[in-house]
């Protein structure tokens, strides 16, 4: 097992090194200007020199993403439970949600910024909008996927609604819910960045716009690297949480 794992890592590393070599060689051979495509060295230097700026803006974007994601989880789970347990909610809320989901959320960004301003709240709402639907769909899927024979078993055990909820429905739906979170987290990052693109004074999205606008392409790439790292770390945290719910009820 360990051996295969090491092999995976070494192969991946070798591949990345090969890509980096191609990148560097291409710049030299085709004489590409650094404002079009900076060398990896330039990006590293930009990363080092702009460390403080990158960190400041990362913290801002991280705050937007987390607030948006957490509110998407809270509201998403609440709405899912309403739709699951209350037939009227299923007939009204569910079609409404599907309709809302069909709106391209990027198209909403300008009006969200008009309504909620250049500050934190419009970005949190964008992150929320991107993360919300996958969480609802996954949570509902998890609840709907509870095997009928287990539900009958709980009825035979004369379990109360409360007991069935905590002992059967919650653990059954958790793996699917976590899957939804895995989809939603990178989407929340995209939502926050889109919000920052449309109207903001700070954040990594803002930094990308500013750097590109002033031909500091190396800084653009450094900011992109920061966004990517942020997204990966957040995804990995969800992945770790997912290992706590290793079971799949079938």
């Amino acid at each position, binding site marked *: 097992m360990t051996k295969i794992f090491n092999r995976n890592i070494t192969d991946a590393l070798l591949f990345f090194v090969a890509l980096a070599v191609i990148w560097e060689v291409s710049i030299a051979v085709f004489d590409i200007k650094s404002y079009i495509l900076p060398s990896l060295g330039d990006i590293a230097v930009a990363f080092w020199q702009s460390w403080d700026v990158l960190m400041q803006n990362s913290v801002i974007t991280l705050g937007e993403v987390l607030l948006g994601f957490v509110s998407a989880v809270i509201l998403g789970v609440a709405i899912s439970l309403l739709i699951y347990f209350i037939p009227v909610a299923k007939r009204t809320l569910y079609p409404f949600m599907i309709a809302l989901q069909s709106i391209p959320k990027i198209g909403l960004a300008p009006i969200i910024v008009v309504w909620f301003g250049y500050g934190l709240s419009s970005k949190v709402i964008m992150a929320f909008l991107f993360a919300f639907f996958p969480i609802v769909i996954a949570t509902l899927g998890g609840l709907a996927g509870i095997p009928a*024979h*287990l539900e*009958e*078993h*709980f*009825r*035979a*055990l*004369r*379990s*109360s609604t409360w*007991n069935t909820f905590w*002992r*059967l429905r919650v*653990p059954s739906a958790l793996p699917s819910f976590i899957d939804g979170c895995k989809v939603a987290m990178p989407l929340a990052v995209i939502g926050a960045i889109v919000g920052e693109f449309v109207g903001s004074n700070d954040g990594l999205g803002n930094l990308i716009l500013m750097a590109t606008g002033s031909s500091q392409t190396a800084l653009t790439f450094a900011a992109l690297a920061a966004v990517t790292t942020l997204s990966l770390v957040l995804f990995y945290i969800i992945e770790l949480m997912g290992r706590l*719910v290793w*079971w*799949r*009820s*079938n």
Partner: protein
Amino acid sequence: MAVELVQAEKHSPMKQSRENAISVNNISKYFGGFDGVIALEDVSFDIADSEFVSIIGPSGCGKSTMLRLLAGLIPYEKGDITMLGQHVDGGMDGVGMVFQTDNLLPWLDVCANLKLGADIAGVTVSAAAMAEMIETLGLVGFEKNFPHELSGGMRHRVAIGQALICNPQVLLMDEPFGALDALTRDRLNMELLRIWQAEKKTVVLITHSISEAVLLSDRVLVLSDRPGKLVAKVEINLPRPREPSATREDRLFGDYVVKLSQLMGVN
């Protein structure tokens, strides 16, 4: 050989020295209303306290439906069921149910799965009782294992243990060994007989295996093909304690199997 063929008539509960644990009177079950599919038609029988009764019949004859009616899991349109002196309407205290699928929760280990029914009922299981149950089920050393780490036979033993640990007076079993290989099945059959003899529970077993029914039961009820009607009640007068190979060698055993096959319409 005591074979009571059932004629369509008003059922009058048996007069027995033993008390009836279950009394089923003229039960009919329709799926999809009165003009829907008739699953069971005018079924009546009594089961005495601590009697071991099997219900057999061709697949689709409504034997699982019969058990779900006894367990109060589905409503009935006509007739009346009394269990442990109470009219059956929804689930009952003192009744344990074992399903065809083992129904273990994948996120709970063996001990937690065994305790599930008790936990839901709000009954505490002492450590001693748990250890005894683990011992009885032959699961020593597997207390902390999860269902996916167990064999099919072990999983079924946990499922049976889950019903037994609440110490029910009546045990309802819906083909609990259907999915197991012959050897494991024999072993679990003997385990079941041992527990039944030790604790004198009333057992109703649904099975499609005629020989399993003969091997285990005091009495076998035969249901006909759809709509399910009770065709015969056959008393199995084989000596106890029973044991798979010896009992099967008994000439009477073969006679019972042949008789029941004929009643079921198997040739």
